[in-house]
């Protein structure tokens, strides 16, 4: 498998953003080697702030920096960048709509051996419910790098959800990140699979399997969960008349919920969700966890079989 972790895309992207714009600053909570901000730290030591293991303060300090025209990227693990600091994100960043970017690495259960305390399965739901936040979940290294650079140019709060482990390349270095738009990756007629993050690769694999069964799947990468590309989602869903969502996150409040909300109000269609079924994770290797928690290609294929019966 040729691939790289999306956190590596963040590390390179934020360095590029820092070269382009002197106002870009980075804050980290004693996980800088893991969040891949070390290169930024080496290149721009005066613009890097080690905040220690104090995430609430880190978010507040980032907000203060933003009031002075800085573009702070605050990075830590997704569990500590979301639920732990939900109130700081809400009141110090989102409400005043400050230009703070949250780089949430080690998201989802693919963190692996660290276990449930470190596996965020609810962060998208939390961030999606806070007004003014843009929520981006890149599907590969190149999309992560491009999304980080785009986020630096956008004025407002952004939550970037990133992985610890390597994910296969979906794009290459020529990829152009289009702000807020869904990205159709494979054309199909029978079923539409909306996927985000690491599940985009699984969706593409599922589409290959489905093809051998004579089922043509339309695969769409949803990198921005909020604000959701309503027009793009409705068009892609109506194209086939049956919908699957796939995410490495709880089926409550994430991509599945977001797509269901749009379809319920605009285009009632049969739909099945692939995701974490309202449970915590556990220690294990990422691929073992993906298998156990129903987040691999065959789970998407099974969901397609179910939804097609309802079509």
């Amino acid at each position, binding site marked *: 498998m040729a691939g790289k972790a999306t956190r590596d895309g963040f590390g390179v992207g934020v360095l590029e953003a820092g070269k382009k714009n002197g106002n870009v600053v980075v804050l980290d909570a004693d996980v800088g080697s893991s969040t891949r901000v070390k290169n930024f730290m080496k290149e721009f030591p005066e613009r890097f702030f080690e905040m220690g293991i104090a995430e*609430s303060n880190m978010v*507040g300090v980032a907000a203060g*920096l933003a009031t002075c025209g800085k573009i702070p990227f605050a990075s830590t693990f997704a569990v500590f960048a979301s639920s732990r600091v939900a109130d*700081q994100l809400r009141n110090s960043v989102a409400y005043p709509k400050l230009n703070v970017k949250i780089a949430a690495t080690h998201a989802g259960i693919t963190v692996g051996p660290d276990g449930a305390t470190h596996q965020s399965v609810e962060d998208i739901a939390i961030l999606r419910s806070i007004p003014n936040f843009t929520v981006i979940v890149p599907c590969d290294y190149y999309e992560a790098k491009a999304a980080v650079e785009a986020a630096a140019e956008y004025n407002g709060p952004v939550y970037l959800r990133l992985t610890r482990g390597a994910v296969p390349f979906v794009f290459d270095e020529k990829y152009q990140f289009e702000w807020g738009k869904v990205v159709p990756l494979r054309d199909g007629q029978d079923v539409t699979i909306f996927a985000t993050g690491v599940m985009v690769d699984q969706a593409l694999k599922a589409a290959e399997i489905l093809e051998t069964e004579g089922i043509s799947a339309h695969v769409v990468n949803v990198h921005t969960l909020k604000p959701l590309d309503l027009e793009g989602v409705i068009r892609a869903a109506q194209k086939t008349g049956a919908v699957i969502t796939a995410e490495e996150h709880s089926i409550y409040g994430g991509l599945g919920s977001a797509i269901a909300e749009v379809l319920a109000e605009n285009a009632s269609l049969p739909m099945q969700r692939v995701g974490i079924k309202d449970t915590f994770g556990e220690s294990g290797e990422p691929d073992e966890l993906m298998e156990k928690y129903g987040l691999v290609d065959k789970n998407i294929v099974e969901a397609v079989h179910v939804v097609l019966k309802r079509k």
Partner: protein
Amino acid sequence: MNRKRLESIQDLENQAKAIRRDIMMMIHQAGSGHPGGSLSATDIVTALYFNVMNIDPENPRWEDRDRFVLSKGHAAPVLYAALAESGYFQKEDLKHLREIDQHLQGHPDMKGTPGVDMTTGSLGQGISAAVGIALAGKLDQKEYIVYAVIGDGESQEGQVWEAVMAAAHFKLDNLVTILDHNRIQLVGPCCEIMSVEPAAEKFKAFGWHVIEIDGHNMEEIVKALTEAKAYKGKPVMIVAKTVKGKGVSFMENTAAWHGNAPGDEDLQRALAELA
């Protein structure tokens, strides 16, 4: 730069009295709000806005201005009164505190109200933002000073101590924080709810330069703030001993007026005392 600067202690005391009257009228009109903690911080906020701070009410986003963060955001009325009396917006606006479609929110909103440097209200968060503003000042080699007012009840929030630790770590001598030490919170005395004592010793132990003053003695306040802005090498904490509800006899030293609005008769009594 066009701003109202008062030099004499007498003028500052008169200004503080006017702000206390504004606070009473605003909260009475609104029918809700926090008089106790607004009155305890009034002399400090008056000294900042009418003597110490380098500000320009006609240019509220001037990038070299001194900043003010009201971390105990529920004392919004004292900030709004100081901003209106300074000329950031019309005094007429004070009649519309906490009203729909108006800019004076129940807690400070930097997007809506001219002169508010940081949105606050969820306790413990403003001081972190003040640390961020001070860091930005150092990064940009600006001369501005960041002033923050925190509460003693607020200091029960863990985030306050994260921020206090960080300010000392980064040697933010451009950050001056004032503890409005009125010793009473919503339910009752801080020492009974969750003691933060010995407060001054705690800030010293966290690496701050600490100045202890009477938070209602204008001369001491101005002297301490002047000393604090010149202090080098450490952030400065002014532990200001204050009286909750200061200036309105029946509101003093009681939790009863933490978050209750004066009625018609209360207002008349208060204004008579503040005449």
